């Protein structure tokens, strides 16, 4: 997922303090809000728009379905337009919203730097951006807090290694995606700061190996190469910018008979990864983003804005670390899928 999130001074300070004192307590994170169902009928007679990321991507489709479901529950008319990961298409969506007289819209188009042009082309109504900044028209920003999301799983990994291996490990492989810039830095940096907050500042040091492999195929290919360079390592930490990276890493490790040598953490905890999280013993943690519940923030707060109510600018998701033990509790639907 391409997502941009501001680094907040408070969170960074908290991370720094946590790293220094070696505590495993998660940093306080401002701007997180609870999911809330819109009041039935609260959107009656209101037309809202949604510029989607891409329905062809599981994450984008989950967000779309969630928003459609909550808009329907609120009684609002939803006008959906798929940006298909393309800013020019999103620009066209904004123009269409103007034609259709939407009274407020959620914007999940992927190119932050094109947001000014899109804001200008669209109707001058309240806008909530999703995961990607949409200046200058965004009245609120909802979605992932990438730095915090990285820390959540980093801390879980740190706790596991502290408990089982006294924080001893051979390598810390980071499967990154340089194409998403700031998100990559925030998320992958979050892993490291989270891990070091448990196992000590500087504990990763020169054991860090960064690989540009944010998707399944490159992770599969490059992890095999990486494992070849670490023939005698049996405690290799692998973190990835998304679940696909970890799925690729485990496939690579299995292919060379070394699935037991890697200990991994991913990002997303999307439905497509549930069964792997449940059934792969060394999949230690995964940060949940809850795309299937985005509508429970986006729709009620957008309706509030349209009605002139005050809404906090930051509407961040409360990320949670998932593992095989708590998967079915947090995602009950996983039970039937992975039984």
């Amino acid at each position, binding site marked *: 997922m391409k997502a941009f999130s501001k680094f907040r001074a408070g969170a960074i300070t908290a991370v720094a303090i946590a790293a220094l004192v070696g505590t495993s307590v998660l940093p306080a994170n401002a701007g997180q809000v609870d999911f809330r169902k819109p009041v039935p009928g609260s959107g009656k007679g209101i037309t809202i728009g949604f510029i*989607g990321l891409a*329905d*062809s991507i599981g994450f984008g489709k989950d967000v779309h379905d969630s928003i459609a479901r909550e808009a329907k529950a609120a009684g609002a008319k939803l*006008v*959906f*337009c*798929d940006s*298909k*990961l*393309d*800013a*020019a298409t999103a*620009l*066209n*969506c904004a*123009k*269409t919203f*103007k*034609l*259709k007289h939407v009274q407020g819209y959620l914007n999940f188009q*992927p*190119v*932050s*730097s*094109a947001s*000014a*042009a*899109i804001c200008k082309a669209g109707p001058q109504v309240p806008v909530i951006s999703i995961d990607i900044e949409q200046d200058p028209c965004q009245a609120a920003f909802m979605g992932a807090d990438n730095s915090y999301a990285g820390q959540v799983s980093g801390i879980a990994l740190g706790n596991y290694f502290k408990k089982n291996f006294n924080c001893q490990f051979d390598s810390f492989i980071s499967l990154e995606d*340089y*194409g*998403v*810039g*700031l998100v990559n830095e925030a998320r992958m940096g979050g892993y490291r700061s989270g891990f070091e907050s448990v196992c000590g500042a500087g504990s990763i040091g020169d054991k860090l190996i960064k690989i540009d492999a944010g998707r399944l195929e490159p992770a599969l290919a490059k992890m095999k190469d990486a494992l070849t360079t670490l023939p005698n390592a049996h405690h290799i930490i692998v973190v990835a910018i998304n679940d696909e990276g970890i799925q690729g890493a485990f496939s690579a490790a299995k292919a060379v008979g070394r699935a037991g040598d890697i200990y991994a953490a991913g990002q997303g905890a999307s439905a497509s990864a549930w069964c792997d999280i449940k059934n792969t013993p060394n999949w230690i943690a995964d940060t949940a983003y809850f795309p299937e519940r985005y509508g429970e923030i986006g729709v009620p707060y957008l309706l509030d804005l349209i009605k002139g109510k005050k809404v906090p600018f930051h509407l961040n998701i409360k990320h949670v670390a998932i593992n095989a033990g708590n998967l079915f509790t947090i995602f009950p639907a996983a039970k039937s899928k992975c039984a």
Partner: protein
Amino acid sequence: MVKLKAGSTQSSGEGGVKRLRKIPDSAPLVGVLLLMMIIFSVTSEYFFQLDNFKNVLANAAVTGIVCIPSTLLIISGQIDLSVGSAAAVSGMLLAQVVNHHGVPLGLLSALIFGLVLGCFNGFIVTVIGVNALITTLGGLGFLYGVALLIGNGQTLGMKNFEWLGTAQPADIPLPILIFAGLAIAGSITLRYTTFGRSIYAIGSNPNAARVVGIRSKRVIFQTFILSSVSAALAGSVLASQLSSGDPNAGLGLELQVVTAIVLGGASLAGGRGSIFGTVLGLLIVGVLNNGLILLDVPTFWQRIAQGLMLIIAVSFDSIRAKLNQSRS
């Protein structure tokens, strides 16, 4: 009486064939376009509005700018698959240079990039002799990497250069005017100039064209330059519309271009096609996309409808061409 009847029937049959021959090749496309416009006008209250037509044309304009020289290239039997990545590089280059050295230098650098790329493609194809498909497919990947490299994987915001993409002289978006100008120039070139006739000759029969003294390599080289420069211009227009350079902006542009051109009746084997047909192909795709969005058709169905429409339109055109051939 019987003879007279038979004669009149034959005469009427010949007349029918003659009338069929007189129907322009583009008539089925015009029919499809009109039919779609009628359907969308009836089914969506938002379709038949001036602002919506402007949206359709403005959206089609960026692809259209690339389509015009690409039509010449396809008629000559060549293809340029690097146009999407070329547009992305030029947009990134434009944003980078505009931010540091101003608009004129930014535009100039984007266009010079197009020129250099066109020369490179033309050289590889005509001098080294590498197949155009392979050459430009390589360019597609290579240039995408360059686009990512320019911004280090990031998009580049660009300030104070919106006019190329958003200005509306006489209430008409500038990209539409640029596209219209290019379409007229392209049409005149193909119909009334030696260069245009050479393109048809090379595409129809390269050997015969060489025998009659047409400098095929030179014409193809020049057409590659036109193609790359137009891609650079389109990338600049797009970057201006979005106020930013985006390394992913041109992804898939090459397929949109080929779709519009083939839909417009051009043959990928060369020798057949027209600018008017390409414009119609472009409008059909644009109107279909716009109409489906206005009707809130789910994305997956939009893709299915777009694919089906292309197959049906091309099949229809092919059947009509075969009928014409068998009757003649």
